[in-house]
């Protein structure tokens, strides 16, 4: 087996483990944005477990760390599960998600080691990430700043204010990943207010744009493999096409699942979906 295949296999296995953890914590709590988390887990797993992001869970505030800013704060279960897996805190804490005595709830909370910011209201994390990236430039530091937006978050005007600002200020140390799962809260994005042609919009704002399959570890690895030696002066937008609910077929392509955790029979079905081997896909 090639090295690439082995690496991808490891990442798939890790992603499946994270998906199970996320489903488990949300079912246990009876709340949490399961589908919004599932769509971005493969991207998060690649960032944290394929040597893309530079971090040290023992030094969560190391000034030299790369930053990962989750702007779509409703996917906090995904990030919490990844952070626990990476060693930022005891995975047992996940079982207390959004419950009495738990340290964190449905939206992202900055005092959780590795979480960086408090987020839930949309259109904030991106701008904070750009501010951090600007400070890194002013300080001549080499850290990279990654931020993940939801596609539905891109309806917020603040996203585009910041998109213009970041390219004008040549923040090429800033990487935006858009979790393009095509679903908003009540409907598909293209039914609500069209986002496409999405790449053109980012390009018009002065960004380098890549569009990838956000569930293909091969594609994700290819996209980020030279991330530290980019020669472009532009910030980078990676539009990652994803499926909201990915891995749980019974929860995909249905806006009604937004923000919900499955119960009883639905929970059993969801769990059995995740029991399948990813290698067989």
């Amino acid at each position, binding site marked *: 087996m090639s090295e690439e295949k082995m690496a991808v296999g490891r990442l798939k296995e890790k992603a499946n483990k994270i998906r199970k953890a996320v489903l488990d914590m949300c079912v246990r709590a009876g709340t949490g944005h399961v589908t919004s988390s599932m769509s971005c887990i493969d991207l998060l797993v690649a960032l944290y477990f394929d040597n893309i992001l530079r971090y040290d869970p023992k030094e969560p505030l190391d*000034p030299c760390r790369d930053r990962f800013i989750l702007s779509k704060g409703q996917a906090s279960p995904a990030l919490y599960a990844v952070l626990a897996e990476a060693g930022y805190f005891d995975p047992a804490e996940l079982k207390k998600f959004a419950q009495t005595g738990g340290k964190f709830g449905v939206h992202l909370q*900055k005092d959780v080691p590795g979480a*960086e*910011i*408090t*987020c839930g*209201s949309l259109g*904030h994390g991106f*701008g*904070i*990430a*750009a*501010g*951090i*990236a*600007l*400070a*890194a430039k*002013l*300080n001549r530091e080499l850290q990279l700043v990654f931020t993940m937006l939801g596609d539905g978050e891109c309806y917020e005007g*603040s996203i585009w*204010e*910041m998109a*213009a*600002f970041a390219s004008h*200020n040549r923040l090429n140390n800033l990487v935006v990943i858009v979790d393009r799962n095509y679903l908003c809260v009540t409907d598909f994005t293209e039914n609500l207010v069209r986002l496409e042609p999405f790449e053109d919009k980012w390009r018009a704002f002065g960004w380098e744009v890549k569009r990838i399959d956000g569930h293909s570890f091969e594609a994700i690895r290819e996209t980020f493999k030279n991330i530290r030696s980019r020669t472009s002066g532009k910030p980078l937008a990676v539009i990652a096409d994803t499926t909201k609910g990915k891995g749980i077929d019974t929860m995909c392509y249905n806006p009604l699942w937004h923000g919900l955790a499955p119960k009883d029979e639905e929970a059993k079905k969801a769990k059995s979906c995740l029991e399948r081997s990813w290698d067989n896909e």
Partner: protein
Amino acid sequence: MNNLPQRDAFWNKVYANAKTDRDIIVISADMGAPALDKFRIDLPGQFVNVGIAEQNAITIASGLALNGKKVFTYAIAPFITLRCLEQIRVENAIMNIPITIVGVGGGFGYEDSGPTHHLLEDLAIMRSMPNITINSITDSVMAEHFADLSCREKKATNYVRLERATLPVIYDKNTDYSKGLSILRTGGNCCIISTGSMTHVALDVADKLAKKKIKVGVIDLFSLPINEKHFLSAVKGIKKIVTLEEHFLPGGLGSAVCEVLSDKGLTLPVKRIGISTEQGYCYKYGGREVIRKHLQIDAGSVAEKIDGFIKA
């Protein structure tokens, strides 16, 4: 001394500090000041113009602050506060990322620009959030002091509410601002508590009443939340209180004063003078004094009201 507009006194001080502290960054939402011109020219790496995008200014500032910078955001006061309420609430109140929010034009500072530029709600709204302190500036000496303070390491955000007009200097360099208030006049049983430009009106009112042999005290309350200990000490022995503000009455300075009195069980008669929501927004032109007269918050009207209040 050569009196300056508050904004120039403020930015001159920030500039002086920024020359030796590279972590000081000014983010302007396309708002200028003569004192900022030299900042932009001499310290280009510490000056960012985000365009007319105040919300963006707050968020970028907060990101910069998360990475160790001491950041000032600057715009016309209603826009850098109320327009950015969501950003200030999430970044600075909830997350407690410390920045300095500088707005020019409290009250009717932008007198002839109409209600979009008048600012009659900011004290109520900004003081309703944790981790935000309001510095309502009375003169250019005070502006310089709070500029200096804002350049130091901070634990929370402050909103510096600057007057647009150049007002007389009433403080000196040795003033202690740590109490959040200053007793400017003593005497009599009644005291006016005011803030910002209205403190100058209050002094005028005290002079007018003095001519009628009526003595009133004047307290300039320039920092919110109110420092309760010093406030209670300042109003000790006072029998009647008048609050005076160029602000809507709900939630403003008068409300803040009544909250402290009520919480402490002090049942003093209080007359709140400001703008009622029934009076609403103002479309009168011809200068600030015309507006104040129309709304009966000019010195003459206020003196009459206080005279009646004292005699009642």
